[in-house]
């Protein structure tokens, strides 16, 4: 059985014809420009300017409390960071957290989305209860999980039969990473399922029924009809969550403060800029973090081969 995908719109061919722009279209364009202008200007002020500032600062050896020692060092800060073992350790932690949590969230989130989509009775209650964790502040959920895993007043050790009662989850690298990931997954799976639900509800029931009539099993309908048609929604969900997960900070700050080598890239940047007031080195780190986020976004868009314009339903 071949993959059934909704027929692509024919608009693309037309768009390639030489463009003749009418007066009206031109006027609309101009109006559009004017309407977005305030937003663009605001964005330039609040995001582009700080970014340029960070880029500039990253070229200096500059400590906030030693302004006289400020010195232009070119790309030396980047050299320091990229050859530092701590940077790579933290990058590895961050990538690991991102890959593991997004993969697990995708599976659980999809299951939740199916439940929310198909459920007939108590729909509101079920949907609300699935979404509750996402409504909780990250710091609060991190504290909740820290208490849960805590040696002194947590319940995890008592509930898990194969874990001794005096096991210190935050006393080792892997167990601490596990606790951090659990809290991250618990907190953000609802977001994933919400995005997937939007994708699910866009699939035409006709196609699924047609596949059923053709004799496709449930498994075949899932893999050949539902998932291919949700590709854009899955891409958006994975993209958003991967970028979020890559910038993980709150859980680590609350649960371990980076002890036992559980530091993430964001946490390292925070420590350099805020705690050690190393504006130069810290800015170099934040520029690298920004580039990493761009790279991940690019890779995910390429990987799913989704035309973003099409994903938005544009011609």
């Amino acid at each position: 059985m071949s993959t059934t995908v909704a027929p692509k719109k024919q608009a693309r061919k037309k768009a390639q014809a030489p463009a003749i722009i009418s007066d009206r279209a031109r006027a609309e364009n101009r109006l559009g420009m004017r309407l977005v202008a305030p937003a663009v200007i605001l964005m330039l002020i609040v995001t582009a300017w700080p970014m340029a500032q960070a880029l500039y600062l990253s070229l200096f050896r500059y400590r906030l409390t030693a302004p006289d020692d400020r010195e232009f060092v070119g790309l030396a800060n980047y050299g320091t960071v990229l050859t530092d073992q701590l940077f790579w350790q933290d990058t590895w932690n961050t990538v690991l957290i991102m890959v593991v949590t997004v993969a697990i969230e995708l599976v659980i989130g999809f299951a939740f989305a199916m439940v929310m989509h198909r459920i007939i009775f108590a729909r509101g209650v079920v949907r609300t209860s699935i979404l509750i964790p996402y409504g909780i502040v990250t710091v609060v959920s991190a504290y909740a999980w820290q208490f849960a895993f805590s040696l002194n007043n947590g319940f995890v050790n008592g509930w898990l039969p194969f874990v001794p009662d005096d096991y210190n989850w935050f006393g080792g690298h892997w167990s601490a990473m596990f606790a951090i990931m659990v809290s991250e997954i618990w907190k953000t799976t609802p977001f994933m399922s919400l995005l997937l639900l939007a994708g699910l509800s866009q699939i035409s029931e006709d196609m699924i029924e047609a596949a059923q009539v053709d004799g496709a099993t449930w498994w075949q309908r899932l893999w050949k009809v539902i998932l291919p048609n949700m590709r854009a929604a899955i891409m958006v969900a994975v993209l958003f969550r991967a970028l979020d997960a890559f910038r993980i900070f709150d859980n680590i700050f609350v649960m371990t403060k980076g002890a036992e080598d559980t530091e993430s890239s964001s946490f390292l940047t925070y420590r350099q800029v805020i705690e050690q007031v190393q504006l130069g080195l810290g800015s170099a780190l934040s520029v690298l973090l920004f580039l990493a986020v761009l790279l991940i976004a690019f890779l995910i868009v390429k990987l799913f081969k989704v035309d973003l314009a099409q994903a938005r339903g544009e011609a």
Partner: protein
Amino acid sequence: MTTPRKRQRRVRPAVATVGILLMASGVLAACGGEDDGGNNLVWYINPDAGGQDKIAENCTKQSGGEYTITTQVLPQDAGQQRIQLARRLAAGDPEIDIMSLDPPFTAEFSAAGYLAEIPSDLQTKFEEQAFASAVDAATWEDELVVAPFWSNTQVLWYRKSFVDKAGLDMSQPVTWDQIITAAADNDGTVAVQANKYEGYSVWVNALVSGAGGEIATDTEKGADATVTIDSEAGQAAADVVAELNGSDAAPADLSVSNEGTAATSFAADTGAFMVNWTFIWNNYGEERLDDDIGFAPYPETVEGEESAPPYGGIGLAVSNFSEHKDAAMKAVECLTTPENQGVNAELTGNMPSSPAGYDYPPLAELYDAQLLALFQESLERAAPRTVSPYWSDMSGAILSTWHPPSGVDDQTPDESATFMEEVLQGESLL
């Protein structure tokens, strides 16, 4: 054509916008705070049991209306106090007049130009009044940059019954080796602070200073200071840490121990020795473990060489961005009088920074006379942490290389020196 009704509707959002803007401007104006022209001084204090509030009130009264001091509390954690103050002062915030500063970042703030210069007559007065170690900790580039307010030091606390059992003569100075051996041979523990936090740097610094060394010298050169921890003194310090870690005298929680857990280990049945700050005396209630707590000078790193107990405390500084510097300086003079130091010590257990402060009568009722004498004697020879604008980096580098204590060996002083130099030169991440 627009009907009147429609027009009215259109007007409403405009009215609402204007209203919101007016409200917002009102709120912003309120945030700015009113300056009544008088000397309303804001003192940023570290959290305590009310001692600083009390003396702020005393000085406000004494000034006869010349100035009013109100207090604002900084975060609990010393690192967070530093971050909040540094960021606000770097931005030239005029809302801070007086601040309570921890010694490790006194030099950093002074070098950055955040602290108003203390007039030379006041400097002389503060220097004459305070303990030598308090003056050392408050001095940067030969100028006294903060007024010593309260001073803390560590002594060796021991269980009298244990010492009797072990047959150790505590009337003479003892060495680390002696107490570790005595504890290990008699099923006792030696409680210290060795978690990955500033308290561990305090211990390492005291061990190095006790052997006559220093973590770094030429600190006026800032990041180009000479790192001297890879010396015989550094080696002697590493030997003590390694000896304790490898001995039966090490408490089970050595690698995560702090002041509080050390106090608990000391109170346990196996408790024998502990190094800890002055305030721990009041930690054990009136009974003091059935009157079983003894005290002695801080242990020697090297036999025969006088120990250098750690120095802690708070100094008061006037912000360089304050709009009331003269009044603030007068207020600091009042807040740090020996009497007010005594008032603060009575309420908080944070001991005075001057011998005269110890004469405040209520202290004699709260503390054993011999203990008060030991505190003062210890403060006279206490060694502050290396006074450098880069102390936080040095401390971080020590923690990265000396923690956990189980990893400390002959190589540690050398490794920590190399790493510290790299960190100071911005060649390595901390």
